[in-house]
């Protein structure tokens, strides 16, 4: 019998790390301020005290280094869990992630593997400074060899992070920081991982499919509530495992509803919403009754705090887009 805890998303992250570190001695957390300070968001709070400074290591300030060290450690059979303090600071590590971590297994024909979980908070909505609020998951989802996971709530954070920590593949685990403390879930502390390659159907319905991931699941579910009040039967999908993506769950839903709207916080052009729409347009075009709607961040730079909320897709925008798609005959 496993116990249950009421956790925020960030507490669920800590709980999953704690659980797995207890079981697997090869897991080593590392990053800027992850030790004594417990991470700037406190995701690793208390873990250095518990596991020592050889399992939770503060690094010098250099993201390429954090990623590059992880590659070397992984090649030795360790399971590094690097934290990038904010996703806006992952770019110095891009070279290591794209040219080394994502490729090492393939380029050695499986000889050296890369069980690395790159954790990082991402997305907007907390009025943080410049470069702290972007959603750039699509940049990584386009890189073969990586997996990209995005939990939208505490339960999924727990289960998907466990899955990451057990996966032999390199993973970007993107934590929607706006949700860090937004909701609490009763999470079963049972150490059970969620699948790494399955979308979640969060609500079943027949009229329209709303598809999203990460923090935007919040707006999407609220929009579904509103639409439901008007008698619309909404199906809601949390993509969660955004790369490689589970298309079957999405296709099944679209075959049923014939209408869909994809909601993303990232800029519209070239985002994951485009990939989803393209896949549907190729494989399920004839299931569609209406054009595929996309609600997305604008194709401009996330404004600073003062105008941030004008940029972020709102419940209202999702509802409007859904209504447009629903009206289509």
């Amino acid at each position, binding site marked *: 019998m496993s116990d249950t805890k009421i956790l925020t998303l960030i507490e669920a992250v800590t709980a999953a790390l704690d659980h797995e570190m207890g079981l697997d001695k090869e897991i080593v957390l590392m990053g800027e301020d992850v030790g004594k300070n417990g991470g*700037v968001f406190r995701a690793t709070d208390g873990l250095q005290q518990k596991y020592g400074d050889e399992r939770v290591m503060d690094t010098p*300030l*250099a993201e390429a280094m954090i990623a590059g060290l992880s590659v070397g450690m992984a090649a030795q059979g360790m399971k590094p869990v690097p934290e990038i303090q904010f996703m806006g600071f992952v770019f*110095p590590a891009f070279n290591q992630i794209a040219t080394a971590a994502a490729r090492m297994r393939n380029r050695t024909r499986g000889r050296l593997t890369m069980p690395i979980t790159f954790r990082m908070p991402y997305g907007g909505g907390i009025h943080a*400074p410049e470069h702290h609020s972007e959603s750039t998951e699509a940049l990584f989802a386009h890189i073969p060899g990586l997996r990209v996971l995005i939990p939208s709530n505490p339960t999924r954070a727990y289960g998907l992070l466990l899955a990451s920590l057990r996966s032999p593949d390199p993973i970007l685990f993107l934590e929607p920081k706006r949700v860090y403390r937004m909701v609490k879930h009763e999470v079963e502390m049972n150490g059970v991982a969620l699948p790494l390659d399955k979308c979640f159907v969060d609500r079943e319905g027949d009229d329209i499919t709303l598809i999203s991931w990460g923090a935007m699941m919040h707006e999407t579910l609220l929009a579904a509530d509103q639409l439901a009040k008007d008698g619309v039967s909404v199906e809601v999908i949390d993509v969660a495992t955004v790369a490689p993506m589970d298309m079957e769950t999405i296709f099944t839903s679209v075959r049923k509803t014939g209408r869909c709207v994809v909601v993303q916080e990232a800029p519209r052009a070239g985002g994951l919403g485009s990939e989803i729409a393209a896949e549907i347009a190729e494989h399920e075009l004839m299931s569609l009754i209406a054009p595929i709607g996309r609600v997305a961040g604008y*194709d*401009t730079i996330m*404004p600073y705090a*003062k105008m941030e909320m*004008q940029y972020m897709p709102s419940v209202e925008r999702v509802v409007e887009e859904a209504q447009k798609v629903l009206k289509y005959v």
Partner: protein
Amino acid sequence: MRKSISFEINHLQYLDESAKPANDLPEFAKDTDKLVELYDRMQFLRAMDKRAVGLQRIGKMRTYPAALGQEAVGIGAGLALKDTDVLVPYYRGTGMMLSHGIKPHEILLYWGGDERGADYKDPIAAQDFPVAVPIATQILHAAGVATAIKLRGEKRAVMTEIGEGGTSEGEFYEALNVAGVWNLPFVCIVNNNQWAISVPSENQTKAESYAQKAIAAGMDTLQVDGNDIIAVHDASVKAMEKARNGGGPTLIEAICYRLCDHTTADDASRYHDQKVHDKAWEVEPVKRLEDYLKSLGVLDDKAIEAMAKDNKANVEKEVEMYFDILNNQPQPPEAMFDYLYAEVPEKTKPQREEAIRRGAK
């Protein structure tokens, strides 16, 4: 056979920990008006930081990085810039920015979450960079500005700044290397305030100084007491002058202590050693110069209080300008689109229209 190679790094201090001259003072420091000016500006910076942090506490400011304890670095170095020089600051560079024509309310606007805070209106600052948040990127920008100056044969120089933690980023080193090999008019100040958020300097590098990082680039380098503004200013003025005259780049490590939280989003009590912290207060830069000026009889408590009052009032004026622009003259929704490209792309125009339609939030 080749010989072995050797290097030496000097440490500069004029006012010692007890505010007594430890060396012959440089020429400018014999001018007490100049020293009072330096003091005044440090005082202003400290007052402004205090107010900004206070604003954040009451929800009228976003994350703000104060420079408490580091005033001598920012002001001492910043005042070495001439009008025609260029500043490429980092996020804790308020001292330098104020010293080069950037307005306090502009700095407040930036940290208050308004892009207009980086659209510097003073012509002196027209070529200056906005603060760099992605650590160490600015050092390359400074090297690029210096490259342009050098290619054009101008007698100007660039100053940039970085924290001691930031020196671990590869881009810092890439910039020093090119500044060295191209002999660029470039001066880089390392604000060694002992902390990179919660990571103490001894966990950042095994180098016994940050000055020696420049040896890798074959570049001139020295260490100064960052709590001694006379030392900081002297080293900076000389380095900038040398740079303007084709003498090449210099790195200056200024050793001080971060007496505040990393930013308003941080809580240093989680990792600071309170005793070390308290000890650092004993050698802090504003007090050091104050004591020296008092010992000379140039300033007394009354004069100091009067200056403080003035500075507070000046900060207040700037805070009002900040509020006025932020709240009474908000940017229109289309501002999100209008500065990204020279012209708004066709594909984005409908989005711009939508943003306007949805209006402010």
